C-alpha cells in the first residue's frame, strides 16, 4: 500500500496541475447542471471561480459535476450522484471524497516535500561527489604529471647512465691506448737507450784506446820496494792447473757450505723428531681413557690405528733412525690419526663445556650432586648397618666359641633332629593343602562353565528383544524421510564424539554389513554418504557443530545407555561400515 501511494500520488498531483487547466479549457462548453445541488454544495465561494479561472460557471455546472463524477469514478471514488442515473448529488459522498482528496493532497504535499528534501540531499551528495570527483581528477592529473616527471627523470638517468657507460668505455679505451703508448714508448726508449749505450760504449772504447795508446807516462806505480804477500807465498803463474785448482776450491767451498747446511738440517730434524716423539708419547698417554669406549673403536677403524701404534712403538727406536722417506707415510698417518682422535676428544670436551655454559649441564650437575649426596647418605647408612651386623655376628661367634666343644656338638645334633621333625610336619601340612586346592579348582571350573552357558542364553534373549524394539521404532519413523536423515545426522555426530568409547565399538562389531543394503531404502541411501563427509569433517574439527545440532536432537549424547541405543538403531539401519570408517579415522 505504501508503495502504491508513493508511486501514484506524485502522478496525480502532477496530473492535476497539468491536466486540470487543460480539461477545464476543453470542457468549458457550458452544459446543463443541477443548480440545486450547486447551490447546496457551493453556496459561498463565488469569488473562488474567478480565482480558479472559472472551471465551473453557472452555465456548465452540470457538465462540471458530471466531469468531476467521471473523474472521481475513474480514480476509484464512489460516484457523487445519489443514484446511478439520477442528478441528485450525494453530499456525504462528496464531502468524503473531498476529505479524502484533501488527505491525499496533504500526503502528496508531504511526499513532495520529502522528495524535495531528498532531491536536495541527493543534489548536495551529487555536489559533494562531483567535488570529490574533481579532486580525484586533479589528483590523478597530478600523479600522472608526477609519473611523467619520474619517467622523464628515469629516462634522464638512464641516458646519463648510458653516457657514463660510454665514458667508462672511452676511459677504458683510453687506458688501453695509453698502456699501448707507454709500452711503445718504453720499447722506443729502451731502443734509444741501447743505441746511446752503444755509442757510449764506442766512445769508451775509443777513450780507452786513446788513454792506453798514449803511453801515459803518468800511469805508473812508484813503490819503494815490493812487499811480500800476507801469506808469505809468491804469486803463482796463471796456468790451466791453477784454473783447475780454483774450480776445485770453489766446489770445495760450496760443498762445505752444503755440508754445513745439511748438518744444521740434520740437527734440526733430530730435534724435531725428538719433539715429535715426545708429542706422540703425550698423545698416547692422553688418549687411553677415550679408547675404552667401544663405540669409538668401531667407528673409524681406530683399532687398526691402535695396532699400528703398537707396531710403531715396538720398533720406534729403529724407526727414528730410518730416513724420513721410508717412514714418512706411516709416521704421518699415525700422527694424523692420533691427532684426529685428540681433536675429537677436545671437541667433545668443548661441546660439554658449551652445553654446561648453556645451562642444561649446570642443572644436571646440581641434580647429580644432590643424587650423589643422597646416595652417599644411603651408602653410609648401609655401611653402618653392615658394621652393626658384623658386630653382632662377631659377638655371636665369640659366644659360640666361648661354649664348650662337646656340649656344642651335642646341642648341634639335637638341633638337627628337631629341625628335621619340624620339616616333615610342614611337608605333610603342605600336601593336605594342595589336595584341598585342587578340589576347589575343579568345582570352580564347573561353575564357570555353567555361568558361560547362562550368559550365552541371556545374550540371545537380549538381542531378540532389542531387534524387536528397533523394528517397531523404524516402522514409526519411515513416513518422514527428512526427519530420519536429520536423525541420522545428529546421531552420527553424537556417536562420533563417543567414538572413542570402547563399548560403542564392541556393539557395532556385532552385525553390520549384511543389513546395510536390505534395510536402507533407495530414497535415503545417498544421504548417509553425504552425511559421512559431514561427519568426517566434524569429527576432525570440534564439538561445536554438535552443539549447534543439539536443539534438533531428540537423543542426548550425554547419557551412555541412550547413545548405545542410538548406535544400535543406527547400525541396524545399515550405516555400520561408515561408522567403522569413522572410528578408523579417529583412532589414530
Amino acid at each position, binding site marked *: 500500500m505504501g508503495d502504491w501511494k508513493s508511486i501514484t500520488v506524485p502522478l496525480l498531483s502532477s496530473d492535476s496541475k497539468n491536466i486540470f487547466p487543460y480539461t477545464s479549457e476543453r470542457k468549458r462548453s457550458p452544459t446543463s447542471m443541477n443548480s440545486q445541488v450547486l447551490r447546496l454544495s457551493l453556496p459561498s465561494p463565488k469569488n473562488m471561480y474567478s480565482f480558479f479561472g472559472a472551471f465551473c460557471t453557472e452555465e456548465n455546472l452540470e457538465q462540471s459535476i458530471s466531469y468531476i463524477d467521471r473523474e472521481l469514478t475513474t480514480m476509484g471514488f464512489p460516484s457523487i450522484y445519489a443514484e446511478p442515473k439520477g442528478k441528485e448529488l450525494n453530499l456525504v459522498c462528496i464531502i468524503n471524497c473531498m476529505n479524502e482528496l484533501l488527505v491525499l493532497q496533504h500526503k502528496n504535499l508531504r511526499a513532495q516535500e520529502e522528495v524535495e528534501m531528498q532531491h536536495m540531499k541527493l543534489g548536495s551528495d551529487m555536489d559533494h561527489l562531483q567535488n570529490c570527483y574533481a579532486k580525484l581528477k586533479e589528483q590523478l592529473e597530478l600523479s600522472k604529471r608526477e609519473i611523467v616527471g619520474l619517467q622523464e627523470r628515469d629516462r634522464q638517468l638512464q641516458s646519463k647512465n648510458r653516457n657514463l657507460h660510454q665514458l667508462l668505455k672511452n676511459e677504458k679505451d683510453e687506458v688501453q691506448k695509453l698502456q699501448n703508448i707507454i709500452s711503445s714508448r718504453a720499447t722506443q726508449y729502451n731502443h734509444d737507450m741501447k743505441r746511446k749505450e752503444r755509442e757510449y760504449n764506442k766512445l769508451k772504447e775509443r777513450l780507452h784506446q786513446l*788513454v792506453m795508446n798514449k803511453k801515459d807516462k803518468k*800511469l805508473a806505480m812508484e813503490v819503494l820496494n*815490493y812487499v811480500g804477500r800476507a801469506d808469505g807465498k809468491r804469486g803463482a803463474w796463471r796456468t790451466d792447473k791453477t784454473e783447475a785448482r780454483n774450480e776445485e776450491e770453489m766446489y770445495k767451498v760450496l760443498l762445505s757450505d752444503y755440508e754445513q747446511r745439511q748438518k744444521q738440517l740434520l740437527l734440526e730434524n733430530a730435534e724435531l723428531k725428538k719433539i715429535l716423539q715426545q708429542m706422540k708419547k703425550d698423545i698416547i698417554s692422553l688418549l687411553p681413557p677415550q679408547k675404552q669406549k667401544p663405540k669409538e673403536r668401531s667407528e673409524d677403524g681406530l683399532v687398526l690405528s691402535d695396532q699400528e701404534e703398537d707396531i710403531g712403538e715396538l720398533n720406534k727406536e729403529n724407526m727414528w733412525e730410518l730416513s724420513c722417506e721410508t717412514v714418512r707415510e706411516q709416521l704421518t698417518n699415525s700422527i694424523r690419526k692420533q691427532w684426529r682422535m685428540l681433536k675429537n676428544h677436545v671437541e667433545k670436551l668443548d661441546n660439554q663445556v658449551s652445553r654446561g655454559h648453556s645451562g642444561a649441564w649446570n642443572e644436571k650437575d646440581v641434580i647429580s650432586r644432590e643424587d650423589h649426596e643422597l646416595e652417599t647418605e644411603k651408602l653410609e647408612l648401609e655401611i653402618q648397618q653392615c658394621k652393626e651386623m658384623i658386630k653382632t655376628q662377631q659377638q655371636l661367634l665369640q659366644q659360640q666359641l666361648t661354649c664348650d666343644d662337646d656340649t656344642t656338638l651335642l646341642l648341634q645334633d639335637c638341633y638337627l633332629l628337631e629341625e628335621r621333625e619340624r620339616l616333615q610336619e610342614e611337608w605333610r601340612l603342605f600336601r593336605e593343602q594342595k589336595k584341598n586346592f585342587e578340589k576347589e579348582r575343579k568345582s570352580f571350573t564347573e561353575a564357570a562353565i555353567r555361568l558361560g552357558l547362562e550368559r550365552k542364553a541371556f545374550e540371545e534373549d537380549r538381542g531378540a528383544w532389542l531387534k524387536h524394539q528397533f523394528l517397531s521404532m523404524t516402522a514409526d519413523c519411515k513416513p518422514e524421510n527428512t526427519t530420519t536423515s536429520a536423525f541420522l545426522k545428529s546421531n552420527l555426530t553424537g556417536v562420533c564424539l563417543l567414538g572413542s568409547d570402547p563399548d560403542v565399538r564392541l556393539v557395532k562389531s556385532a552385525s553390520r554389513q549384511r543389513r546395510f543394503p536390505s534395510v536402507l531404502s533407495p530414497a535415503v541411501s545417498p544421504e548417509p554418504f553425504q552425511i559421512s563427509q559431514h561427519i568426517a569433517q566434524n569429527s576432525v574439527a570440534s564439538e561445536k557443530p554438535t552443539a549447534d545440532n543439539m536443539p534438533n536432537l531428540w537423543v542426548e549424547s550425554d547419557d551412555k545407555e541412550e547413545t548405545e541405543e542410538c548406535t544400535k538403531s543406527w547400525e541396524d539401519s545399515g550405516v555400520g561400515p561408515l561408522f567403522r570408517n569413522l572410528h578408523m579415522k579417529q583412532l589414530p
Partner: protein
Amino acid sequence: MNFSELFKLSGLLGRFSPDGKCLASSIQHRLVVRDASSLQILQLYTCLDQIQYIEWSSDSLFILCAMYKRGIVQVWSLEQPDWHCKIDEGSAGLVASCWSPDGRHILNTTEFHLRITVWSLCTKSVSYIKYPKACQQGMAFTKDGRYMAVAERRDCKDFISIFVCNNWQLLRHFDTETQDLFGIEWAPNGCVLAAWDTCLEYKVLLYSLDGRLLSSYRAYEWPLGVKSIAWSPSSQFLAIGSFDEKVRILNHVTWKKITEFDHPATISSKKTIVYKEVEKSPTVDTERLTFPPTRALASSLFSTQSKYDISQVPVSLQYIKPVADRANPKVGVGMLAFSADNCFLATKNDNIPNAVWIWDIRKLKLSVVLEQLCTIQGFQWDPCQPRLAVCTGSSRVYLWTPGGCVVVQVPGEGDFQITSISWHCSGDSMLLLSKENFCVCYLEREEV
C-alpha cells in the same frame, strides 16, 4: 761512558784499523794514525793533495789514501814509516779505490768506468778488468776474501764475473736476467750472491757461487722497486727494503718470502714500545751559579738536553709526503741492518725520517720504534752484541739495547753534529764523526 776530546777531521774520514789497534783520520792532506785506546799519535803522513778517501788494508799494515781529483792513490805502511807507494791512474782518471781482501792489491776504478785496474804491491803486475758497470754497488768481495764479484755491462746486457782474488783469475762469467743491474752483494757465507735490478723493476736474483741461478724474487711489477738490501750475518735471511715502505724477508732454504714488515705512520700495536725523544730544559741550581760562570756550565745551559719518553700507543709518527715529480723520491726503506746476533733488524723508512724501527726477527714483529727529534743520519749495530747506535746530526748519541735506550750528550763546547758512527771491532768504543771533528766514545763493559 767516556768521551775523548774533539779532534779535527775532514771529509768524514776516520777509521779504526781492522785489528782495532789504531785509528786513522785525515785532515786536509795529512793522515794521522793514533793509538785506538790512548789516542796518541803514532804516525803522521802527508799526502800530495787533499785526501778524499782512506781505507785500511785487511791486515792493518797499510793505509790507502785516494785523491780522486788528481787521480792518485798513496799507500802508507805502518810498520815502515818511510815506505811509500804512489799509484797514478794518469789521464784515465779515478773515481773509486779499494783494497783487495788480501791487503796486497789495490783496485782502482777509472773515470767513466772504463776499467778496473788491479795494482799489486807484491809484484809490479797490473791487471785490468774491462767493462765494469757503473752502478751503486758493482763490486763485492766475499767475507772470507776469496772471491770477488763484479757487475759488468757489455752489449747492453748485464753480466756478473766472479774472480778468484788469489790470482785474479776469472772463475765464472754469466749474464743476469736484469734490465739494468743495480747492485750485488755476497751472503756472509760466501756462497750466494744477491743481485738486484734497478728501482724501475722489483727484481732480486740469487746466484750460487758457481753461477747457477738459485731463485728470483719479485714482489710486484710496476711501482718503484728495491731500495736497499741486507743479509743477516748468518746468511739465513735476506731483507729487502723497497719503495713501497716495506721490508720483505726471504729465507735461505726456499728463497721465498717469510714475512713482510710494513712501516705505517701510526703504530697501534700494544706490543710495540715507542721511545720518543723529548727536549727538556736544564734545571739550574741558582745557589750553585757562580760569577763569572764556568764554560762548561754555560755551554750546558745553552745546549738543550733531551731524554726518551715511552709514548702510549697508538702513536702517529711524523710523516713527510714525498714529492711526486722528483726523481729518487724520499720514500721507502733506505737503510737496513741486522744485529750481529741475527735477532734484530733496524730499518729506516725515508718518508718517516725521524724514526728507527727495530724488528724482532725471532718473533717477526715490530719490537721498538725510536722517534727522534731530528732526521736519522745513520745507525750501526755493535759488532758484538745487540746494541744499536744512532746519530741524528745533533751532538747526542742514542744507544738502544733490548733492555732500554739512552740519550748521551757529547760533552764539550761548540757544535758537534754527529753524522756518522763507526764501532770499534771489540764493541767497547765507537767513533763519532762530524764534518769537522771526531771523538771517541768509550763504553764501559757491563758484563765484565
